[in-house]
């Protein structure tokens, strides 16, 4: 029989019983086995079969472990059931439609063509989601970077929302137009987020 060599307690002071346990742990163990602490050999029997064999006396009462495992399992089952049974969206959201439109741009529009991604708000100026609408717009801009990669979508500030005249920065394949002056001439509710390529509007959503 090989002696135990510690393990997680490898960094204790090295004072060990002949069985490898720290002496203090052994004392604790002894207290648990003291008269009045309960006879573990009589615990856990079911119809004559020993559920927790007497050999387990070496380490203490097995019912505690059984209870702990059952409680933890019940907890995991409840949480998983809540996750699986949650209410799920039944139809594709705007984000998915936007993705599809961007994907069409990526696969169908020739490289070098200009594409307008018109987003209300200046994405370079918004980081903390001051308003929900602005934050959503910025997400659209980020999403364009993700879907159109490795093309770089550059921010292009304009002063009005309706039909800006884009000036293509050198080498840009796709162009993002935003509104740098949303605090002054900002587009209000009812303005639109558009994705246009080659005169075709691929995605359009009313800004809230």
């Amino acid at each position, binding site marked *: 029989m090989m002696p135990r060599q510690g*393990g*997680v307690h490898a960094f204790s002071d090295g004072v060990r019983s002949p069985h490898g346990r*720290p002496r203090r742990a052994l004392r604790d163990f002894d207290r648990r086995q003291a008269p009045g602490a309960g006879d573990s050999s009589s615990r856990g029997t079911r119809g004559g079969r020993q559920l927790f064999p007497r050999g387990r006396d070496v380490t203490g009462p097995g019912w505690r472990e059984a209870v702990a495992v059952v409680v*933890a399992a019940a907890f995991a089952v409840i949480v998983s059931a809540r996750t699986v049974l949650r209410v799920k969206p039944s139809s594709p959201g705007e984000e998915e439609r936007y993705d599809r439109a961007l994907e069409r741009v990526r696969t169908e529009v020739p490289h070098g063509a200009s594409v307008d991604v018109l987003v209300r708000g200046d994405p370079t100026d918004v980081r903390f989601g001051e308003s929900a609408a602005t934050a959503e717009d910025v997400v659209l801009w980020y*999403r364009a970077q993700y879907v159109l990669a490795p093309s770089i979508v550059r921010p292009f500030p304009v002063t009005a929302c309706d039909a800006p005249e884009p000036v293509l920065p050198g080498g840009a394949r796709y162009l993002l137009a935003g509104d740098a002056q949303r605090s002054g001439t900002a587009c209000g509710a009812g303005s639109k987020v558009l994705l246009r390529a080659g005169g075709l509007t691929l995605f359009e959503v009313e800004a809230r």
Partner: protein
Amino acid sequence: MKALLVLGLALPAWCGWHLSRWVFGPGAQGRFAGLGRVSVAFLVGVGLSSLTTFLWLVVGGALDPSFVVADSLLFACIGAGSELLNRKGSREPKSSVRMSDSARSQGTALDTLSASLLALGFALALWSLTDMSWEHLHGGWDAWAFLNQRARFLVRAGHGWKAAFGPDLAWSQVGYPLLLPLSVARAWTYVGETQAVPLVLGIAFTLSAAGVLVAGVATHAGCAAGSVAGLLLLGTPGFIVAGSYQYADVPLASLLVAALAALQSAGPARKPATIALGGALLGFAGWTKNEGILAGALAVATFWVLVARSAGIRAALRDLGWLAVGAAPSALVWLVFHVRIERSLMPGLPAGYVAPSLRDRILDPNRWAVAFREFSRLSPGMHIGVPCLAIGLAILLGVRSRALVVSIALWTGVGLWIGVAIFFALTPWPLEWHLRTAAERLALQPWPAILLGLFGSTRVDR
């Protein structure tokens, strides 16, 4: 396609399998050692392959079919070589943690109950993960906006992959280390671009964290304690959500808990190979997210203090050397990345935003109170009392204060939790915004390590 994906993941994992024997090898106690070994093999495989993929790119290669040939040949050779060495070896290396033959030979009813309920927990977690992942094929915000976006650049841009780190994309955390984007990009090179790859990786990282945790606890405290720890982790709602969202915090947590399990397995003999493997896993954690560097530093410091206390300073210095040997490849790659490709560690503050000075942030007591209170509130499963349940179950299982005091996993986990809370208190970004958008994810990073420390310190059940 599936066969290629399996090949792409299996070859590095085969190499990892040979290394994982140093943590949960044939001498390890408990019926969950195999589960732990598979998990460590996956984690080591992903880490190793991300390093070689990065080196391939840095020396001028692109992620094209020639990469697939070179990569598969490399890992096939390493795996076959390790296999031959294993077979030639006269004896299998033995883990320092052993149990008696008689105890190993008999499985009790309690062990069977534990294993059955744990299997149920894994099945339900897999169901939840798949179900949620299906709704977020591209992952959550960090996954698609940063990690998968970078993976797309690495694959789609060919030799122009460095465009992923240009100033136009500075908003996208370009200073994040590349273990995850490289792993996704590497698999895409094998099978073509499909959202199944990051989805499968996200699920595998989540389950491997639980696998390592279960095996790590079971090795020292028995099957029941291992099952309880694993079930609690799999039942932590935020952990499953973050895993299905493909967030980097879950892989970081997995690598950290695997590293700590390895360092605990090193035992009093403090086997150099096991310590070096622990160092390698810590290195991979730092190569996953920059918080991994903090976690690694805390783990190394704790390990050093505990070894110095029990075996002397000279032995501690020797072990530190083995840790450094293991972590060196990842550290070197991290340095190359930050010196040659992307210097920033964090995105710059937006124009027009003036952050409070560091002095003001340090001296503002309200800021500290808010940071710690909110970070506590957003900690894993706090809203449904998971930490209280964990403590209660650990007490029920007979947790020993003396073992807690010398638990490297607990000290590292708690230290990381405090370190991240301090990071929030000192953040230059608006505190409430930063807490709201990041605290819940970041608080997951030390959670498996804390569970390993807590339940690994319960009494041995045999």
